[in-house]
């Protein structure tokens, strides 16, 4: 392991590491645009120049590998002049349209200008080279060629990650620009990443454009609920509204990427939400109190068990629920209702897109968790049949959607159940048939863990408290259990996970600490 010094600080860096990475490991940030940890080295922005002893010229730290005894300085006058010089070059043709640019606030040009530049322009306004602005290049992306600093991250992403190569450089010298080929827009399921990796405002998200200034946004560490891959994300929000998902680096799951479908999943926390407990009787809906809805749901379940036996009630769990919630669902079904009718399904309606990268066939974040917690998927069809045969007198349903059934099929099927209680987040076919609606907090309003397709248990954090009158799944389940005569006292996901880890072998020995930021793999038969 080579030992070197950076700004006089001694560093032990692994073989094959660059100066830029070694510096980062000791908290010395070297400015850069073209370097990206998940893309090949381009070395074209020239921002990361550093002084290396015995080299007459400044070296780019992104492509200079550490060697034994190397002496690196990033803080000399020579380096500073070089970096400010490069920054000045990058800015001469820039339109400086920050007031109308979505990147403002998280822009590499703004940030480094404040840190290294602060110069007055020496370049005449009328000499600026103009390029095309506001180009819809397909996918989720708008291109503004004038703001582009030609770092080539986007071009490399499309060559190396998606291997679709839609963007290329055209022309030469200071007329160089990136563009799509005529008539060939972006055509892959990962276009949103281009806005993330673009260090300036050249590639912006159509979805996020002009929605919110980034400095108003707060971020919560979350996990995309859009499929079983479990891409780590930052959920950016203001007040009780989510504005966007951005991928969060996890090399074991999604590197620094996410798909275009997942990127829009945040909308589910905003739109068509269930925010008030509701009763539906004879086709009329009325808003009710939590006390009333919990009491009614609990007593109707109890009555059905008492009158027709535990086989007459069913609990359908959802792979959209967290492990913690699913644990309590099973506990409630098995220990309180003692019904064998507990199942879930990972089926979802409509065509689904999947690939061998991040897009999974299963569009639920926690099917694997449900399996590992011992909730059966095989029994689902049997329960549906029993509903159809009129044998289910009370149904406790979690989620918004009954498998892959259409709206009409759902309505027809649920007509056969005298009492349907739904714990759901959004309007949907089940909501339209349920007799009692127990509004549940969205993924942004509660915390917990999901287990992805590979068994990796990952935490998602609460961004803000439940909207409206919605409550977390744990609160709702605890409330039902208490009203079913138990002395449950589960508050918050932490204690529930502890209980889960103590009683479910695949999760044995796990804790929120051991899961950490990167997740931890649960093993079947552990």
């Amino acid at each position: 392991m080579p030992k070197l010094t950076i700004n006089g600080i001694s560093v032990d860096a692994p073989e094959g590491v660059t100066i830029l990475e070694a510096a980062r490991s000791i908290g010395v940030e070297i400015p850069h645009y073209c370097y990206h940890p998940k893309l090949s080295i381009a070395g074209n922005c020239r921002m990361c120049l550093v002084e290396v002893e015995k080299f007459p010229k400044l070296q780019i730290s992104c492509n200079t590998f550490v060697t034994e005894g190397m002496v690196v300085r990033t803080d000399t006058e020579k380096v500073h002049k070089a970096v400010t010089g490069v920054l000045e070059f990058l800015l001469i043709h820039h339109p400086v349209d920050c007031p109308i640019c979505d990147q403002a606030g998280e822009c590499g040009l703004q940030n480094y200008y404040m840190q290294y530049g602060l110069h007055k322009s020496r370049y005449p306004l009328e000499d600026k080279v103009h390029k095309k602005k506001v180009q819809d290049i397909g996918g989720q992306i708008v291109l503004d060629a004038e703001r582009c600093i030609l770092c080539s991250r986007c071009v490399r992403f499309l060559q190396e990650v998606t291997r679709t190569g839609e963007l290329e450089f055209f022309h030469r010298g200071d007329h160089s620009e990136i563009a799509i080929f005529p008539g060939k827009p972006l055509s892959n399921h990962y276009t949103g990443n281009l806005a993330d990796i673009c260090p300036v405002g050249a590639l912006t998200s159509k979805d996020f454009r002009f929605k919110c200034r980034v400095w108003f946004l707060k971020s919560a560490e979350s996990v995309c609920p859009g499929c079983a891959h479990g891409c780590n994300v930052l959920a950016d929000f203001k007040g009780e509204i989510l504005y966007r998902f951005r991928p969060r680096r996890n090399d074991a799951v999604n590197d620094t990427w996410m798909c275009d479908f997942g990127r829009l999943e945040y909308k589910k926390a905003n739109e068509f939400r269930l925010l008030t407990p509701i009763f539906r009787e004879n086709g009329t809906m009325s808003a009710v109190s939590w006390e009333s809805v919990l009491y009614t749901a609990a007593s109707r379940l109890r009555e059905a068990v008492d009158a027709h036996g535990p086989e007459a009630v069913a609990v359908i769990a959802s792979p959209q629920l967290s492990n913690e919630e699913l644990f309590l669902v099973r506990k409630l079904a098995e220990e309180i209702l003692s019904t064998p009718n507990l199942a879930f399904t990972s089926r979802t309606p409509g065509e689904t897109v999947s690939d061998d990268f991040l897009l999974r066939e299963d569009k639920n974040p926690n099917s694997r968790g449900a399996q590992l917690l011992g909730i059966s998927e095989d029994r689902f069809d049997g329960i549906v049949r029993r509903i159809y045969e009129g044998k289910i007198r009370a149904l406790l349903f979690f989620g918004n959607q009954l498998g892959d059934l259409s709206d009409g099929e759902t309505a027809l099927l649920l007509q056969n159940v005298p009492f349907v209680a739904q714990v759901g987040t959004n309007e949907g076919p089940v909501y339209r048939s349920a007799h009692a609606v127990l509004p549940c907090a969205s993924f942004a309003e509660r915390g917990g863990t999901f287990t992805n397709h590979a068994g990796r248990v990952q935490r998602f954090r609460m961004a803000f408290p439940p909207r409206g009158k919605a409550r977390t799944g744990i609160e709702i389940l605890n409330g039902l259990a208490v009203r079913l005569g138990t002395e449950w006292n589960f508050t918050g996901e932490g204690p529930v996970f502890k209980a889960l880890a103590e009683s479910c072998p695949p999760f044995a020995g796990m804790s929120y600490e051991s899961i950490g930021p990167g997740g931890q793999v649960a093993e079947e038969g552990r």
Partner: protein
Amino acid sequence: MELVLTRHFDNDRYRHLDTYVELGGYEALRKAFAMPKERIVEEVRKANLRGRGGAGFPAGVKWGFLPKDLSRPRVLVINADEGEPGTFKDRLIMSRGPHLLIEGIVITCFALSAHSAYIYIRGEFVREARILQEVVDEAYAKGYLGKDILGSGFDLEVTVHRGAGAYICGEETSLINSLEGKRGWPRVKPPFPATIGAFGLPTIVNNVETIADVPWIVTHGGEKFASLGVEKDGGTRLIGVSGPVVRPGVYELPVGTSLRAILYEHAGGLLDGKELKAVIPGGSSTPVLRADEIDVPFSIDAMAKIGTMAGSGGVIVIPEGTCMVRALSVLMNFYAHESCGQCTPCREGTGWLAKVVRRIENGEGQEGDVELILDLCDNMMGRTICPLADAAVMPAESFIWKFREEFDRHIREQKCPYGNRFEVPCRS
């Protein structure tokens, strides 16, 4: 005087194989085939053969950078993208003595155990590309290329590849990218071509003239070649003289011939008895010399000692009465136009330089513009992936250092003292 390359260039039939062979051609190849490969490399090293493309790197040393193991095929690439303004010597070799190049290629490939070679020829050299293709076809037909060359058991495939008209493709790594069918952008080094070059294989890129010298070295020995030149810089050089001289053209002269002799004896001095104002000695990228600086031997090291370069041997003569600001403006437009746009200081710096020099020439210069140019140069020099930025900076700095008064006068008088003005807008 011993001529290494041009001895038979007056013979119109010399470019044909039969004549070339009659005049002793391919004898060096036969001799090389009988030599141990390391001996050939050793002779080239002893010859002090310095690269003729511009950088002047010793050819034998460059060959030594190839990885020692032969597990990956090696490639020889001939840089025939002669694009440096003022340079037109490789063109002469390719049109008058192309078999010298082919023979040099076969010997070099044999010595380096390379079985494929590419000649990357400048796109504008339509005629030379045609000649080279004919010559290559001829050599294949007569067994000088292809399988089992001259019964030696050595195989070599040679491909002539035409560039598409970009100065930057004369830089060896962008040449390789272009050869591979990619955009002609220089590669970030490391890795160097000797380890990962064309098609990912260990690659040596040499200039046409460099390789054309190899047969003579094999025939006469490295020491003999070295003795033609000066210390650490052997042989003869093709020197192209352009500008208002009596006999412009390409001259083969021993390395170390004085620049004054080149201009006044060989090229016959300036036309109409004009006074010399300045000389760009080695192609447009090399720092300019004043008229009083030409008593210098034309060798790589002697030129370096006075702050300029022998470069590619393209001597550009600038007579009295030439506006140096205008001359620089023309050069700066060239570099701004040819910058590939990959890395920041060159992409933005060359265009900016062109604009500032141009506004000075047009009488619109401002106080501080000369200092601005020098500062931009400082921010470009040595900061880029390839030497194109340096190539623009070297003339800019040297023009100002040596002819500062002309720049100042343009700015002071708000016009060109020579009455020049560019009417067409600067592209960049």
